[in-house]
């Protein structure tokens, strides 16, 4: 497993170098995404300031929520962008080259592509978290919780991306369907956490796990809640195992094709 992870890191490094060769596009993408995120969070903060506290959520919590979302999105769409490209890979037959690799198929696929603009999300996420830590005068325990939940959130985000994009193995041109499912998962995750109560909270925690990547971690940090920490961790492990099972089963449906392709 260490060899697999070491190769995954090497592959990500090569992907970054490959993208960085096109310098102008590389820097423009990162800065563009960072500015885009600032505009987005500014809107939310103005919204919270206007309507006041909803469900115990303040503007500071929104900063933390957007930090988690940006870090999840940034890490998965940069280092694991291969998963998001699965529909393209399977319809063009480009997935063949991963089947020919001596490495773990899922890790090799995930680290096969890199979306530069997602680096802008990572920078934005780190900035948000630093601001949040400063504003709440976070204790060491809370800082450790932030680090822990960042990893958990990325893991859940990646697991759901794997499950959704694995439908690409079942039918051709799955890109738009997969994107729609992904939006269904991702859009509620970016919403004001206080808006999810009762049935909605249940649905978006246990059926569509959108709240696991932002809302619930923010609440767990704020409340320093061991109960929520345990629940999020158990659900994260469940989704991770489930995603690997789904991917391994879906790969058996791969039928390849003979389009011209280019890439690593």
């Amino acid at each position, binding site marked *: 497993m260490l060899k697999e992870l070491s190769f995954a890191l090497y592959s990500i490094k090569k992907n970054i170098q490959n993208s960085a060769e096109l310098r102008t596009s590389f820097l423009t993408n990162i800065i563009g995404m960072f500015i885009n995120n600032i505009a987005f969070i500014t809107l939310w903060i103005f919204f919270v300031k206007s309507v006041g506290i909803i469900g115990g959520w303040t503007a500071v919590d929104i900063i933390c929520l957007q930090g988690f979302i940006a870090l999840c999105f940034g890490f998965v769409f940069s280092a694991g962008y291969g998963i998001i490209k699965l529909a393209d890979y399977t319809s063009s037959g480009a997935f063949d080259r991963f089947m*020919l690799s*001596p490495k773990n198929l899922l890790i090799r696929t995930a680290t096969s592509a890199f979306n530069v603009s997602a680096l802008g999300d990572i920078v934005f996420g780190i900035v948000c978290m630093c601001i949040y830590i400063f504003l709440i005068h976070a204790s060491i325990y809370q800082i450790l919780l932030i680090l822990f939940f960042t990893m958990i959130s990325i893991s859940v985000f990646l697991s759901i991306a794997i499950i959704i994009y694995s439908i690409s193995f079942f039918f051709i041109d799955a890109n738009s369907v997969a994107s729609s499912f992904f939006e269904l998962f991702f859009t509620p995750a970016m919403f004001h956490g206080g808006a999810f109560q009762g049935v909605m909270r249940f649905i978006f925690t246990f059926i569509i796990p959108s709240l696991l990547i932002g809302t619930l971690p923010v609440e767990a940090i704020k409340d320093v809640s061991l109960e929520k920490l345990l629940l999020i961790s158990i659900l994260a492990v469940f989704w991770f195992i489930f995603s690997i099972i789904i991917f391994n089963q879906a790969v058996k449906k791969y039928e*390849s094709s003979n*389009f011209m392709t280019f890439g690593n």
Partner: protein
Amino acid sequence: MSSNSITVSNLTKKFSFSQKNPSSGWLKNLFSPETKEIIAVDDISFSVKNGERIAFIGPNGAGKSTTIKMLTGILFPTSGKIDILGFDPTKDRKKLAYQIGTVFGQRSQLLPNLPLTDSLEFFGVMYDMPEKEIKKRIAELIKLFDLGSFINQPVRKLSLGQRMRAEVASSLIHKPKIILLDEPTIGLDVVAKKSLRDLLLKINNEENTTIFLTSHDVGDIESLCERTIVINHGIIIKDLPTQNLAKTFIYEKYIDLIALNNFNNFPKLPEGINYSSKDKNKITVIIDINKITVQKSLKKLLDLFEVEDIDVYNADLETVIRHIYEKAL
């Protein structure tokens, strides 16, 4: 250890897809389409010895790529058994990958924006080679494939011929025992084709690498492969030494007649003999040896024409292969 690098027994691959029924409405076709099944590879068996050079040929849609994809573990067979170097590709895909190299002519696996050295290094790391060994092997491949002049150029700036050499070199970084090539010379000019064929022969001679190649290019088959397997409609229709290919399938002979003076008349020819080309200096006829012997043909032709010279020869390999395909269609 077995002397065979590949053994395939009763291999079958079926694909199913939904098909539009023209007599049904579009709504019925949308929600309950008819499913059609095609047999891409139909119960084929063959084996390949270590170090052999095999051409696996057939017209488009014959089942060549499907077979190669099953051999490499990309596709799961519907039924049958594959043994490559003692591995079953369906179960030991990762272990097998360390032992084989693959080149798909219409596909690149190189890093487009980085120099070629980076791609070679990337594959070396992927195959768990130590850093020293990677450097040594890259130096060997640069020399063997004459990559020196463009090794530091970004891959996207390479010509197609250079890129194909680079693709083959990268697939050999881990010294595979077998290299499987699917249309490796597609789109290459004659010089690049010859260069690639020479390189493949070289690695076969120097490293005893088994070569399994699909191609539509007769030159690849003629100059590279000692044995040819012909497949069509998923069935192997012939498996024989390449040099016997023309002999086995030959039921036509060509005769060139060179005019003593000029040919002025082109009379109707006896049954079994047809004009292939005719002008005042030279006539070429095709004889069907199932209908008339060469001896009888020559007698009849000499009665009809005054000739200075005669040349009798077999059809070239391209014509033979075309006949095989046409007959099998």
